[in-house]
């Protein structure tokens, strides 16, 4: 008698994030217009695009950090504009964000950083609070002695891992990663990719990953979406991307660096 995990019980045709007709701009400049994007439950979506095309802006718009001019954003099937403050907080509880520079609170130790959202949202006994924070810290591959260090005492890779532990503190359903492997050496980046894949399997996460790293795209992403000229120019599997005639995608996936990753390309 097997039971499907909660992540799989909802109908898969219902996207966990649905963006429709989104328009975002600053002042005179329009960054994206009429943009549609779906993120499905349980997938790892790799999000690519040239620098300055607005990958981070789109992520931040979905997260509600950048105001939009038009369009609709639905997360967990709820229109983000129609939520009151309490409902919004309930949605925010269900996602975790790994910022590009980690954004760890510099005055708190790693453990306190991980515990901060737990203290705010959950009513845990002191023992469980400690154990759970240490568990998350170990799950992301940090040594327990890193728990009592301040962010300024950590290396770049450790900061990413600590920030990931904080993003996972509340067992989120969606994990937003902003360039998770930037600034890591190739081995560290590979380990980080494996870690994300393992955590995604273990915790049934949906992962939205902004990345430039072709290795990450090949290694962990189920689906790729590419942003260009303010729109999604293509979305689908790696094969779709490779077959796309779009000039930017061609040079991105068939360029010199891509050939090094994909031995099949000549």
């Amino acid at each position, binding site marked *: 008698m097997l*039971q499907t995990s909660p992540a799989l019980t909802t109908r898969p045709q219902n996207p966990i994030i649905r963006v429709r007709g989104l328009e975002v701009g600053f002042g005179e400049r329009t960054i994206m217009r009429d943009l549609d994007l779906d993120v499905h439950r349980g997938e790892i979506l790799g999000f690519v695009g040239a620098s300055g095309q607005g990958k981070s802006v789109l992520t931040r718009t979905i997260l509600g950090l950048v105001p939009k001019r038009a369009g609709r954003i639905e997360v967990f099937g709820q229109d983000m504009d129609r939520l009151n403050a309490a409902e919004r907080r309930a949605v925010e509880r269900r996602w975790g964000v790994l910022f590009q520079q980690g954004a760890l609170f510099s*005055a708190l130790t790693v453990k306190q950083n991980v515990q901060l959202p737990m203290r705010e949202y959950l009513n845990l006994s002191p023992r469980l609070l400690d154990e759970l924070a240490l568990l998350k810290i*170990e799950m992301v591959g940090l040594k327990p002695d890193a728990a*009592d260090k301040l962010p*300024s005492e950590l290396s770049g890779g450790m900061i990413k891992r600590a920030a990931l532990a904080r993003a996972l503190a509340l067992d989120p359903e969606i994990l937003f990663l902003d360039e998770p492997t930037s600034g890591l050496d190739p081995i560290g980046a590979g380990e980080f990719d494996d870690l994300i894949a393992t955590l995604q399997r273990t915790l049934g996460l949906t992962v939205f990953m902004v990345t430039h790293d072709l290795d990450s795209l090949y290694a962990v992403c189920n689906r790729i979406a590419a942003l260009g000229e303010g729109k999604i120019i293509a979305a689908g599997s790696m094969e779709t991307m490779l077959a796309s005639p779009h000039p930017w995608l061609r040079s991105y996936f068939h360029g010199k660096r891509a050939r090094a990753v994909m031995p099949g390309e000549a």
Partner: protein
Amino acid sequence: MDSALAHEPQAKIDRSPGEVRAAVSGRWTAEHAARIERIVADLSEQTEGRLVFDLAAVERLDTLGAWVLDRTRHELEGRGLATAVVNATPEQTILLDEIAYRGFQEVPRVAHSSFVSFLVDVGQSVAGAGRDLVGGTAFLGELVSALVRVIVHPRRFRGSAVINQLEQIAYRGVPIIVLISFLVGCIVAQQGIFQLVKFGATAFVIDLTGILVLRELAVLLTSIMVAGRSGSAFTAEIGSMKMREEIDALRVMGLDPMEVLIVPRILALVIGLPLLTFISSLAALTGGGVTAWLYGDISVDVFLSRLRAAVGLNTFLVGLIKAPFMALVIGIIATIEGLSVKGSAESLGRNVTSSVVKSIFMVIVLDGIFAMFFAALRF
């Protein structure tokens, strides 16, 4: 089944000889942490034989639920009891495997009595003050050697940086310093008149205000204002440059941060503070004059002639001589604090605060030393 109660974590216990079967149901998630802990604690107390967790009816299992289950299994196995988890979905199995109990040891905390920690604090702050003194002296030496280098190679002197700093420190500081000096001059004169009128010596308020302002008040007010305005800005600028490795970037380009950043700032302070002190003296004397005229019926002519008689050149110089030394103290403290900023935003804030507090303290101490010095010289 939609009510909140329906999702509460439950455990249905089925006892048979030598085995306890706990059919758990509901949401075993972090929201229900307290209840989960209680259920599991009761279970583990009452169990004597084999314990089986049946996960068939669990609606949701997150890391917290899995952790508590796994921890309980580990504790029971430590007591020599057998445990098992059955009917877990593949996802739940992966989660339970991934979590696999780790013994987190409590880091032992060394306990001190409050008296001992008080003594430790006192000792540390005395040692810290000593280190500050040594560090300050060493820094003064570095500064002087950098100055000599600049004098020997005048092409390395950054004139435009000095002018820019002078604008920030002196020119933009004029309005606020004029305002507070004027007000303090008014207050001193007013209080002087109220006291001196009892002796019929109202006219002496001019001597009082003139000497007090020129010898002490103008330079003190200006130094404190500059420590708050410019000393804090130095510490913040240099500190954030240190945080973002900009100072290291200067070094690897073969530029001496001392020459590029610090000499121009301290030179600008040493030039700017006496200028501001002079302006402050004028403003305070004007304030005193206006008050003397309003409260003491002393006309402008009388005020000026009496002031000329009461105040000698030495009185004026005493104030002005102190100003560059105050500037040096403020500059050195601000730079040392800025350079000792560590990586975090919190440390930047702490160092800016301590820069201002230490500068103002040292300015007042230095003023006291000068007062004794000039008294001994009868200047």
